């Protein structure tokens, strides 16, 4: 099929996700503001990409658009070179909290996708059997065997997120999208979840997009960290992380000098980008000139 002329170069066949000139404009009672502007990047299969940035930089908005839960105002999102149409089982998303189904047991929650037509259409009896075994496998990988028949309301936050992860992984999504999944957990649980997610994602060879405000988490988990800056939301910088492979990492790594340097540099980028507004205002007062004209908006 012929493509519009926004293509400046042919797609590399190995790209799992392509985001091109993505923009999202919100119109509120206080005027319109650009949550995202001209976001372009790509992700290769099996890559773990983390998004960090100051509040208001649009990282959650970006993830939701990729998931198909929101529509972009401009630009396009391609998964396996095909534009996305709304949400789907190819892009499973994990939320921070309140996403499990309280009326189902842990195992039934994990198996939830099997009740959906989208999954049954592609299945024969053999597939169905395979899926049943896979749900038990995921249950065990996530350390949930002992609570397989429990309901979510008796589980701790960490266990609930493990169920959410297993549920999302059952239908083997092309992309796993995680929106601050460990934000509601305490520090110790978070450390366990870090290693857990690293292992399961490496085992399943999943491509992951991970949004967090915790830079240490981002550096520990990701192959690349993308820093987004607010006002309007755009890519500030991309940081490749050169660490031992996922299955060889330990928590001690978080205290290694190279790790801490990287973490500090990224944090400084985030601070620099969020401080831009007050710096510009100070500059304006000093020189009497307005630099980097920007639409008026009410935003922190």
């Amino acid at each position, binding site marked *: 099929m012929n493509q519009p002329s926004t293509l400046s170069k042919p797609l590399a066949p190995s790209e799992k996700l392509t985001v091109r000139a993505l923009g999202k404009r919100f119109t509120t009672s206080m005027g319109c503001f650009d949550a995202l502007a001209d976001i372009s990047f790509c992700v290769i299969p099996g890559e773990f990409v983390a998004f960090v940035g100051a509040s208001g930089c649009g990282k959650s908005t970006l993830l939701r658009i990729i998931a198909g839960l929101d529509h972009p105002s401009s630009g396009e999102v391609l998964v396996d070179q095909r534009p996305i149409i709304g949400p789907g*089982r190819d892009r499973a998303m994990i939320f921070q909290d309140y996403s499990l*189904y309280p009326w189902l047991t842990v195992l039934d929650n994990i198996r*939830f996708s099997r009740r959906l037509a989208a*999954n049954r259409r592609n299945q024969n009896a053999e597939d169905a059997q395979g899926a049943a075994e896979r749900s038990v496998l995921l249950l065990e990988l996530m350390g949930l065997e002992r609570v397989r028949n429990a309901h979510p309301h008796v589980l701790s936050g960490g266990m609930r997120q493990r169920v959410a992860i297993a549920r999302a992984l059952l239908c083997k999504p092309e992309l796993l999208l995680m929106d601050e999944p460990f934000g509601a957990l305490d520090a110790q649980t978070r450390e366990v979840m870090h290693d857990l997610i690293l292992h399961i994602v490496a085992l399943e060879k999943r491509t992951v997009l991970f949004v967090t405000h915790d830079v240490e988490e981002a550096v520990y988990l990701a192959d690349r960290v993308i820093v987004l800056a607010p006002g309007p939301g755009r890519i500030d910088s991309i940081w490749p992380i050169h660490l031992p492979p996922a299955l060889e990492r330990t928590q001690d790594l978080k205290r290694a000098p190279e790790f801490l340097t990287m973490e500090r540099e990224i944090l400084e980028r985030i601070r620099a980008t969020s401080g831009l507004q007050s710096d510009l205002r100070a500059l304006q007062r000093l020189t009497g000139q307005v630099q980097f004209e920007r639409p008026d908006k009410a935003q922190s």
Partner: protein
Amino acid sequence: MWTIRGTLDRRLYVLIAIASFGLWLVLWWAVTALELIDPLFLPGPGAVLRRFVSWVRVGDLLDDAEISIFRVTAGFLLSAVMALPLGLLIGAYRPVRALFEPLLEFARYLPAVAFVPVVLLWTGIGEPSKIAVIWIGTFFQMVIMLSEDVARVPMPQIEAARTIGANDREVLLLVLMRSAMPAMFDTLRITLGWAWTYLVVAELVAANSGLGYAILKAQRFLQTDRIFVGIIVIGLIGLGTDQILRWIHRRLFPWAGARSP
């Protein structure tokens, strides 16, 4: 115990509830025994009890109760059968909400009692007229409350389903409805209670049987003790069904706490 939102041991709760009932009973008895109020205005508990017994034996109290239970249940079920799908759709789809909400918010304030002569004209003097009044009294509140139960389903539950491949129909039936079910069941329990308060209004419409009818007839003859029996029996039936429904709620939805009325 006395901290705001503090907890109370279950046995202590039951004890206080029974004691409270008992206290009112004693007060009632004392006021009438000491003849502080004319027995015409306030019959004593003994008189009420005697009237109750004679009504059961001689005056078919059980038949009256039966027909009233039938009317309330029928009106309530008719409301529920219509309100459940409508509430689900209103809670799920904004355009449907826009279509119905203004009308419903207006209609809920219409006094059911004012509809009595109109209902008489529309449905005649048989059972449908009583059921219609109960329906008018319950339907509009029910739809609004049910739609709010559906609207309160957490967004992540819905979005998680969509991102693992659920289509709209599946989100509606497998997530929204199941998730809102405990709250909707509670809404039905509460509105059933209100349905009972409309019984007397309903039996204003050319009734010749029923607890409401008996109360109205007793009003005409100033038989206050009979009025009291009728009111208390209605109250007890309401209390009984409420407790049964709460118990069923706990069995059906062990993961959800019931709303207090």
